[in-house]
């Protein structure tokens, strides 16, 4: 199953007032080409996608916040799952694209023995799933968006063939932050200055 095809299925389910946070690798490049409006925090470095998204749920409790993470990134800080379970935010959805490898190198391995869904359950997140087909992905994600969470979905995908790059002025670092903050400041629920 391909990551891009899953993200294409996800995009129409995300309304303009929802928030998304992506990890590095093709999550960022692909997602930035599929969801052009709304507040997207792109290119979070290893281990930071889920906790950052969790923090966003505290700022926007009435909107879905969707973390699009990767196996290697989550593995750097699985303790964040303990915090997710403990905070227990209803508007949180984590989608982990698990291709069993690190990006942009030769062959590497990540989750040889680890089952990220089971780790999440051990951490205390009850609403979890692992999906391997587009039908299962669609059904799982629809349910996560339509019901109270926190939700945790592992998506088994093949490694991407080519390296894909997003527009560095929109998808990374300080430049991305400015686009994100602009969207945030225009959000109807924004309470900051």
């Amino acid at each position: 199953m391909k990551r891009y095809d899953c993200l294409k299925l996800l995009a129409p389910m995300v309304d303009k007032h929802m928030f998304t946070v992506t990890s590095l690798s093709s999550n960022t490049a692909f997602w930035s080409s599929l969801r052009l409006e709304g507040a997207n925090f792109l290119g979070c470095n290893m281990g930071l996608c889920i906790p950052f998204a969790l923090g966003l749920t505290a700022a926007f409790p009435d909107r879905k916040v969707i973390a699009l993470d990767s196996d290697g990134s989550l593995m750097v800080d699985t303790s964040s799952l303990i915090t997710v379970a403990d905070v227990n935010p209803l508007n949180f959805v984590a989608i982990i694209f698990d291709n069993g490898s690190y990006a942009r190198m030769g062959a590497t391995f990540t989750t040889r023995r680890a089952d990220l869904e089971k780790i999440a359950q051990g951490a205390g997140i009850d609403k979890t799933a692992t999906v391997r087909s587009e039908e299962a992905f669609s059904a799982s994600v629809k349910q996560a968006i339509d019901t109270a969470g926190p939700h945790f979905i592992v998506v088994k995908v093949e490694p991407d063939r080519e390296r894909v790059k997003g527009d560095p002025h929109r998808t990374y670092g300080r430049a991305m932050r400015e686009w994100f903050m602009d969207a945030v400041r225009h959000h109807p629920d924004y309470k900051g200055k």
Partner: protein
Amino acid sequence: MKRFDCLKLLAPMVDEHMLAVTSLSTNAPFWYNVRPEGPNFFALNMGLCLPFALGLTMAFPRRKVISIDSDGSLMNDSSSLITVADVNPGNLVAFVFDNSSYAFMGSTFTARRTDLAKMAQGAGIAKSGTVRTLEDFSAAAKQAMESTGPHFIVAKVEPDAGRVAADRSRTSGRPMREWFMDAVRRHPDYQVRR
């Protein structure tokens, strides 16, 4: 059940050539109390006990290495469980004394919804479980010490009453390291790779 009673049961199962590693809190002084001699690395800070012990298994593959950790410490770096499963060392026995709190403060909580043994299983450590009585602790420890691991045992214990004194030159920091290295250099299996 009490942490100290568990450690008292464990100590006689640990022979002079096995290695032990402890986290902070009472794990260090209690373990020093019951097994003062031999290669012990005491009082590793948060998140470091398990991965350090894992490293020791690679230096002493024919000896049991016992990790004596705490819930808060393991939770700080739970990703170490994935590494343990992936390396899959037969000689690792990892204990986590889980009193569901951080030490020496008023009341705190660590993992209100978390099941550490389940996380370990999710990480890929098949031989993992939780014990709540001394009998179960004894049985689980004995089984772990006598069979191939890695083993991961969560022992649910009550918070300790207070601080425990122990000789700090033996259980902390650089002085502790010197005692540890002395024991390691005398170990029959010790091999320095040049």
